[in-house]
C-alpha cells in the first residue's frame, strides 16, 4: 500500500493547507484564469497554428485513419484481383504499385503514426501535465506526416507509385532495375514519416521524463505511458537505420554512389541488414503501444488493478531490447552463416517469454477480477488473445530456419504478418478508440453498433487471413498478380476475398458508429467506464490546459483511491501558460516552465522541408537551395517573443543570479 502523499510530503515546506487559495471559490477563479489565459486559437488559421497536444494528437489519429482507409481500398482491390484464377481486373504493373503502396502506407503512414498520435493525445493527460513538452516540434511532426501521405498517394495516382515492395530490396530498387522515380518516391516517403516519428518520440520521452505530476514516481506510471516511453526509445534507435539506408539508396540512384553496387565494392545485403535492423523493431514499435492499451482496458473492465505491474513493465523493456537482436530472421533465405542463423533463431524464440508473461498477467487480472464487463473494448481485447496467439505461434514457426526456407515469400508470411499486425495491433487499437472516444469527444460510442462491427471484423479478419496460411503451405507465392487455375488455389482465395469484403463492411459499420455517435451519442461523464488513470479525472473533452487544478497522485490507480485526496498543484502562472517540470525518478517539483504558444512556423518549416525532400529526388541541388527557406523558417520558429533588449537585461540579471561581488 502506498503511503498517503501527505505523509510523504509532511516535511515539504511547499505543502499548504488552511489557505484561502484552496477555497472552492478561489479554485474556480483560478480555473477561469487558466481558461482566459491558455490560447485556444479558433478558425482555420487557428487550426494551422495550434500546438495543443490534444488537437495535434486527434488530427494525427484521424489523418492516419484516412491513410488506413486508402491503403485498405488498395487491399480490397488486391483481394478482388486474386478472388479467382487468371483474373484480369489489375495488370502486373499496377498490381506491383498497389501492393507496395498498400504495405508502405499501412506501415509508415498508418500503424506508427496512429500509435504515436494516441500517445500524443493521451500521455500528457495520463501523467497529469498541463501540456506536452516541445509542442511545436510535435506540430511539425504532424505536418510532415500529412505532407508525406499526400506525396505518396499523389505519386501513386500519377502512376509513379513505388512498385518494389514495402522493403524495397536492392538491386531491384537500385539504379539498374528501378527505372523512373518510383523507388525514390518510396525512399523519400520513408524520410517524411521517420522525421515525423522521431520528433514525436523526443517529445514523448521529454514529457514522460520531465512533466509527470508530483507523486507519479516511475513505479506509479500508467502502463500505456510505459509502453509509449519504451516505444519512443525504440523509434530513436531503430528509425535512423532506415533513414540512412534509404538516403544511400537515393544517392546510389541520383549521384552514382556505390553503396549497394556489388561491382564497385558495395553490397546488396547491406541494404537488408540496415532495413531489418529498423524493420523488426518497427513491428514492436507498432505492437507495444497496443499492449499498453490492453492493460488499462483489462484492468478497468475487470474492476481491479492490473496483475503483475512490475512484470508487465519489465516485459515491455525486455521485448524492446530483444527486438533489436532478431533482424536477421528476415534474412534466413540469403545464405548467411549457419551459426549466425542459430543465434537469431534463439533470439527470435526468446521474445516469446516477455510476450507470454504479459498475456499471463492479463489472464490473471481477468481471472481474479470482480466481475468482467463485456463491453466492446473488452471484446476486442479478448479476441486479441486468440488472434495474436495464432500470429505469435506462426512467428515461432518461421523463426526456425528450415521451416522459414520453405515458407519464405509465400502467403504463409502474409498470413503471419497480418495476424501479428492486425491481430496484435489493430484489435487493441480499435478497442482503445472505443475506450477513449468518450474522453476525446465527450460522447459515448454506441455499444450495439460497436458489437456488430466487432463480430463482423473478427469473422472477416479470420476468414481473410486464416486461409492464407494454407495457401502458403500449398506453395502460393506472395506478390503475384494472378495464378493459373490448375494450381487449385482458387477456392481458398475466394474465401479470403469474401472475408476481405466482410472486413470492409465491419469497418464501415465502425465508421458509421463514430459519425452517428459524434452527433447523437449519449453525453459522456468525466469517467464513464470507472477507470483509474488521471485522464478520467478531467472533463470530457479536456480543456486546453488539461486540468484545473492540476492533480497529483499518491498511488498507481489514483481515481480508485477516493479515500485519499492528494494535494493539488497551485502557483503556476496561467499568464505564461506555465507547466510544472519535475525530477525524473520521483517526480518531485523542480521548476516552472512557460509552454511555447501556438505558432504558424512549424507548418511553414514543414512546407520548406517538403520542398527540400521532393526537390532532392530530382536534383542534389534541391538539398542546397531547399535549405535556404528551411533556414528562414527555423529562425522564425526559434526567434523569441518574450524578453527584453540586452541593455535592459543587464539590470534584470541581478534579479536572476545574485552575484556576490555586485551586491
Amino acid at each position, binding site marked *: 500500500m502506498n503511503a498517503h502523499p*501527505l505523509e510523504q*510530503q509532511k516535511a515539504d515546506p*511547499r*505543502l*499548504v*493547507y488552511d*489557505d484561502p*487559495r*484552496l477555497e472552492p471559490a478561489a479554485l474556480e477563479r483560478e480555473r477561469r484564469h487558466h481558461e482566459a489565459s491558455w490560447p485556444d486559437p479558433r478558425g482555420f488559421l487557428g487550426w494551422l497554428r495550434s500546438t495543443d497536444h490534444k488537437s495535434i494528437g486527434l488530427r494525427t489519429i484521424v489523418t492516419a485513419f484516412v491513410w488506413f482507409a486508402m491503403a485498405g481500398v488498395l487491399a480490397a482491390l488486391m483481394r478482388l484481383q486474386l478472388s479467382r484464377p487468371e483474373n484480369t481486373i489489375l495488370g502486373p504493373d499496377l498490381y506491383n504499385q498497389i501492393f507496395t503502396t498498400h504495405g508502405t502506407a499501412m506501415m509508415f503512414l498508418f500503424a506508427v503514426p496512429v500509435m504515436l498520435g494516441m500517445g500524443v493525445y493521451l500521455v500528457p493527460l495520463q501523467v497529469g501535465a498541463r501540456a506536452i*513538452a*516541445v509542442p511545436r*516540434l510535435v506540430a511539425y511532426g504532424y505536418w510532415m506526416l500529412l505532407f508525406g501521405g499526400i506525396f505518396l498517394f499523389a505519386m501513386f495516382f500519377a502512376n509513379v507509385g513505388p512498385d518494389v515492395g514495402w522493403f524495397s530490396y536492392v538491386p531491384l530498387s537500385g539504379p539498374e532495375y528501378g527505372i523512373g522515380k518510383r523507388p525514390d518516391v518510396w525512399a523519400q516517403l520513408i524520410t517524411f514519416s521517420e522525421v515525423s516519428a*522521431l520528433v514525436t518520440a523526443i517529445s514523448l*520521452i*521529454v514529457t514522460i*521524463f*520531465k*512533466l509527470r505530476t508530483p507523486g507519479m514516481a516511475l513505479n506509479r506510471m500508467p502502463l500505456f505511458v510505459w509502453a509509449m516511453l519504451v516505444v519512443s526509445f525504440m523509434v*530513436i534507435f531503430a*528509425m*535512423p537505420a532506415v533513414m*540512412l539506408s534509404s538516403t544511400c539508396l537515393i*544517392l*546510389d540512384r541520383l549521384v*552514382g*554512389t*556505390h*553503396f549497394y553496387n556489388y561491382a*564497385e*565494392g*558495395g*553490397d546488396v545485403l*547491406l541494404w537488408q541488414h*540496415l532495413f531489418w535492423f529498423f524493420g523488426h523493431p518497427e513491428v514492436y514499435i507498432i505492437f507495444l503501444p497496443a499492449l499498453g492499451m490492453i492493460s488499462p482496458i483489462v484492468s478497468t473492465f475487470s474492476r481491479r488493478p492490473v496483475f503483475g505491474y512490475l512484470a508487465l513493465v519489465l516485459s515491455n523493456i525486455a521485448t524492446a531490447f530483444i527486438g533489436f537482436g532478431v533482424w536477421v530472421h528476415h534474412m534466413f533465405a540469403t545464405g548467411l552463416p549457419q551459426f549466425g542463423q542459430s543465434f537469431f533463431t534463439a533470439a527470435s524464440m526468446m521474445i516469446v517469454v516477455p510476450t507470454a508473461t504479459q498475456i499471463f498477467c492479463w489472464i490473471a487480472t481477468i481471472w481474479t477480477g470482480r466481475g468482467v464487463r463485456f463491453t466492446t473494448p473488452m471484446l476486442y481485447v479478448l479476441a486479441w488473445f486468440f488472434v495474436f496467439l495464432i500470429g505469435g505461434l506462426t512467428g515461432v514457426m518461421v523463426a526456425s530456419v528450415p521451416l522459414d526456407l520453405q515458407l519464405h515469400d509465400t502467403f504463409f508470411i502474409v498470413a503471419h504478418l497480418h495476424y501479428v499486425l492486425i491481430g496484435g495491433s489493430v484489435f487493441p487499437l480499435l478497442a482503445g478508440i472505443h475506450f477513449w472516444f468518450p474522453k476525446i469527444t465527450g460522447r459515448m460510442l454506441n455499444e450495439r453498433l460497436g458489437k456488430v462491427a466487432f463480430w463482423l471484423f473478427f469473422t472477416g479478419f479470420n476468414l481473410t487471413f486464416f486461409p492464407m496460411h494454407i495457401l502458403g503451405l500449398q506453395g502460393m507465392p506472395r506478390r503475384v498478380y494472378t495464378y493459373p487455375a490448375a494450381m487449385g488455389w482458387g477456392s481458398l482465395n475466394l474465401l479470403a476475398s469474401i472475408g476481405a469484403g466482410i472486413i470492409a463492411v465491419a469497418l464501415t459499420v465502425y465508421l458509421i458508429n463514430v459519425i452517428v455517435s459524434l452527433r447523437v451519442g449519449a453525453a459522456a461523464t468525466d469517467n464513464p467506464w470507472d477507470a483509474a488513470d488521471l485522464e478520467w479525472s478531467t472533463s470530457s473533452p479536456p480543456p486546453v490546459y488539461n486540468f484545473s487544478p492540476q492533480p497529483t497522485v499518491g498511488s498507481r490507480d489514483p481515481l480508485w483511491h477516493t479515500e485519499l485526496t492528494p*494535494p*493539488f*498543484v*497551485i*502557483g*503556476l*502562472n496561467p499568464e505564461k501558460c506555465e507547466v*510544472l*517540470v519535475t525530477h525524473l525518478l520521483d517526480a518531485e*517539483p*523542480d*521548476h*516552472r*516552465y512557460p509552454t511555447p504558444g501556438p505558432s504558424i512556423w512549424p507548418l511553414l518549416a514543414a512546407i520548406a522541408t517538403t520542398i527540400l525532400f521532393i526537390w532532392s529526388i530530382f536534383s542534389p541541388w534541391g538539398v542546397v537551395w531547399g535549405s535556404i527557406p528551411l*533556414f528562414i523558417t527555423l*529562425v522564425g520558429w*526559434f*526567434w*523569441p517573443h*518574450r*524578453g*527584453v533588449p*540586452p541593455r535592459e*537585461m543587464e539590470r*534584470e*540579471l541581478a534579479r536572476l543570479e545574485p552575484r556576490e561581488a555586485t551586491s
Partner: protein
Amino acid sequence: MTQTAIDVSPLPEHAFGHRSILWWATMGMVAIEGTVFALLIMTDLYLKGRNEHWPPGNILPPGLLWGTVNTIILLVSTIPNELTKRAAEKFHLRTVQLWLIVCMLFGLAFNVVRVFEFMSLNVSFDSNAYGSITWALLGFHTVHILTDWVDTGVLTVLMFTGPIDEHRFVDVSENAMYWYFVVLSWLPIYALIYFAPRIA
C-alpha cells in the same frame, strides 16, 4: 480530510542541464544522430570487410594534414565552448557575447579547412563503395558542423539584439552541449577515415 496543495510559485522559472526540458530534447537529437553516426561507422566496417583492399585498387589513403589540423581546431574549440557554457549558466551576458563570437570564429576556421579535407580525400564519391562511404562519413559530419555553426550564429545575433530572457541563457548552454557531441563524434570518424585505410 483537509484539502491540501503544493504551492509551486516559489520555484524558479528556469533550470540548466538535465533539469531542463531543452537538455532532454537536445539529448534526444544527440541520440538520434549518434545512432546515425554509429550505423555509418558499421556500414563503413561492413563494406571494408567486403573489399579485399581498403582503399581498393591504387587509391591512396586520404592526406593526413587537413584532417589533423581540423581535429586540433575542434579539440581546442571546446575551450571557448566551455567558457560560453559557464558564462551562460552564470547569466554573464557580456562574457557570453564575447565567447560566442570566438566560437563562431573557430567554426568558420573549421569549415574552411573542411573544404581542403574533401579535396585531399584522393577519391570521389562515385568511384567505388569506399569513396561513397568515406564521403558519406565526412559529409554527414559536415552537415552537423554547419547546422550547429549556423545555429550558434543565430544565437549570437540574438544575444546582441534581444529579446532576451533567462531561457536564452539555457539555449546557449544547451547549444554548447550539442557542440561537444559534434566534437566527440568526430574522433571515431577521424580514425576511420584517416587511419583505417592505412592499417588495412
